[in-house]
């Protein structure tokens, strides 16, 4: 075992920090710090800046445009970005479909899509969930019927984050019937401006607009936009979901949220931060958070006997810690957490109430939105079942 950061890594952290200080636009950071979902324009501008530096896809292989960083460097980069309030890039292109494309896509697909994902020119969304297929994805019913050199896609997708500003969607659809529900599913790329695509917002409990329903009515998708082999979409989706799960510890965001929580508790004379019981509760969460950080490092180092169970553990614990931090923040805010504050950065949002504490707007929007942390990308129950399955083998 060797716990020391290499000299390179120490240098690297300083380099990233300096870059962020010089290049992250203050207005973007300020907006993101509030806790509201970042607007598309912020995501786009910031990704373009990263792209110019060659840093827009830290986890991609060099041959596809990645910077060739070690896992540790990626961790440091994400950490510094979170601490600087840089909005993480939209995950659907970079984190999700990108790796599917460079692993299973055709040369034409790679050539067309990867550069635009890297640059942030094209935004993606994920068409997996359906009204009858949430955690149980394999029960999806969207159909893609072959018609010459096209598929005709009909279906109804739900929980489609950012569909209202995405240019492309990757989605799962049935191309044939099969006894095994996982078979006969294909992985398609679909242009959101195609005829037959309708996006309808789903108002959520945070009073924001992030997720949507997407109705697909006789959407004509060229057969060249099929990824990999027809009927093998389930395996690509599993590849994608496994990638996603590994990164769902929320550790960097939670470190930032912890800092914000402490700032709230210390505001107005620090009444609550001086309270011994509150301090103990915060200390207890800080310990959990530190453990989570090292659990992620351990995962990155590749030294976990059971990475499948470990990834589920990260997701489970990460979402619990996220809630615990936001709960402390809400407690620290006291009765001031109750108003529905308009986003002060949104010109059309309306006036703030008199005497609104600086830290208040956005906190509860974030709190409520993050309630989904125990639901998406595999509910906590699904994670526990995965873990038990692994345990019972061991």
């Amino acid at each position, binding site marked *: 075992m060797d716990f020391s950061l290499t000299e390179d890594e120490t240098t690297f952290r300083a380099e990233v920090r300096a870059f962020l200080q010089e290049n992250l636009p203050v207005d973007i950071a300020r907006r993101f710090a509030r806790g509201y979902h970042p607007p598309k324009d912020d995501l786009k501008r910031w990704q373009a800046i990263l792209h110019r530096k060659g840093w827009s896809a830290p986890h991609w292989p060099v041959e596809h445009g990645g910077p060739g960083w070690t896992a540790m460097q990626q961790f440091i980069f994400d950490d510094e970005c979170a601490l600087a309030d840089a909005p993480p890039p939209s995950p659907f292109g970079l984190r999700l479909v990108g790796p599917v494309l460079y692993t299973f896509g055709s040369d034409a697909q790679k050539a067309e899509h990867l550069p635009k994902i890297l640059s942030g020119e094209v935004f993606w969304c994920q068409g997996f969930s359906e009204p009858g297929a949430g955690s149980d994805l394999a*029960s999806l019913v969207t159909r893609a019927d072959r018609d010459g050199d096209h598929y005709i896609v009909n279906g109804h997708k739900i929980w489609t984050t950012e569909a209202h500003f995405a240019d492309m969607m990757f989605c799962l659809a049935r191309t044939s019937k099969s006894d095994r529900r996982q078979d006969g599913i294909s992985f398609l790329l679909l242009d959101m401006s195609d005829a037959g695509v309708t996006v309808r917002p*789903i108002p*959520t*409990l945070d009073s924001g607009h992030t*997720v949507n329903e997407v109705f697909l009515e006789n959407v004509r998708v060229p057969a060249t936009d099929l990824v990999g082999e027809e009927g093998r979409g389930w395996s690509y989706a599993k590849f994608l979901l496994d990638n996603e799960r590994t990164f769902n510890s929320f550790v960097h965001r939670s470190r930032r949220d912890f800092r914000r929580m402490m700032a709230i508790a210390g505001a107005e004379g620090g009444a609550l931060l001086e309270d011994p019981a509150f301090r103990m509760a915060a200390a207890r969460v800080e310990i959990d958070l530190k453990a989570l950080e090292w659990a992620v490092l351990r995962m990155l180092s590749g030294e976990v006997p059971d990475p499948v169970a470990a990834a589920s553990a990260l997701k489970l614990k990460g979402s619990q810690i996220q809630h615990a931090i936001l709960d402390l923040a809400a*407690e620290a805010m006291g009765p001031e957490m109750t108003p*529905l504050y308009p986003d002060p950065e949104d010109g059309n949002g309306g006036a703030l109430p008199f*005497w609104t504490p600086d830290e208040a707007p956005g906190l509860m929007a974030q709190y409520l939105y993050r*309630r989904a942390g125990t*639901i998406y990308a595999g509910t906590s129950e699904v994670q526990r079942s995965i873990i038990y399955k692994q345990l019972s083998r061991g």
Partner: protein
Amino acid sequence: MDFTLTDEQALLRDSAARLLRDRFDFGRRGALLGEGGAAFWPDIAALGWPALGLPEAVGGMDGTLVDQAILMQELGRALYVGPYLSTAVTSAWLLCSVDGKHAESLLEGIAAGTLTVTLAHGEPGGRGILDVPGTKAVASGPDTVRLTGRKRLVPDAATAGKVVVTAQGDGGLVLALIDPAGQRQDYRTLDKGFVSDLDLDGVDGTVLATGAAAEVALDAAICATLTALGAEAVGVAEGALQHTRDYVAGRSQFGRRLGDFQVVQHRLADMFVEIEQLKALLLHALSVADQPGPDRLRAAVGLKVLAGDVAKRVAGDGLHLHGGMGMTEEMPISHYYRRARVLEAQYGNTGYFTRAHARGLT
């Protein structure tokens, strides 16, 4: 002891549930709440609910906090938003403890359903209803004070006919009556409640009570408010449990109904257990509701702690069990959750009241 509802109480519960189901159902609720904070008040006034807890002398029905708690429970279940708590509980209990013609005529208006009144007590940076107000009151006439200060998160002030302001005068606490006009900003809470900020910049108010008399009246208002909130929390939590039970019975995942999964069943059972505890503690608080003193306040504070915890936990579990659907405006559970979340923080959060309770621990 006998915890059976009287025939009148059972009738009140059933008729309230029926009216709310018919006129304030979930479909209509959004529209009604868009119209403003008192949109549903005429229905409530027509049924005489504001008169429930008031003495016959002012036109009331001579009921007790038990009756109001029965109603609050149904209002919670129906996710009611409006000035019932602020007018008929907080203000009414305060005014009933105050002597004089002003209080009497206000109570007559409340009982008749023609007047809503709210208490402006919280201030910016304040942590809860047990805080001492910083607003200043300086004598400005034989029966009036000039008020200077800031009142924050005042419930239902936008539609209130009168506002009772708490302030500090030379002789200690002052309760003064003002009109809700002036520097006021109205806004909404996460659960669609109506609140206002009041900037009192030398506003003249009529003195209702001062010193010890004012303290007694405020104590009555605080105890009644916290106890009624506890009752509302029972309704909120029961509503959340029922909606969740029905949802998991209908929803399928992995080829089975959600309600067939043992972990789902056991979580629902835990929700039930928490609610049973809360119902029981509500009885305790009600048992001392008409006995002013430290025991009553202690019972009310303990109830608020449990109410906040239970409502938040039960509605949170319900939200989780709804999966992605629970995150939508469309599903009642998301509204139960928001009401529960706000209820926990209103008038002081669980930490605030647990601290208060801990101070009195012997």
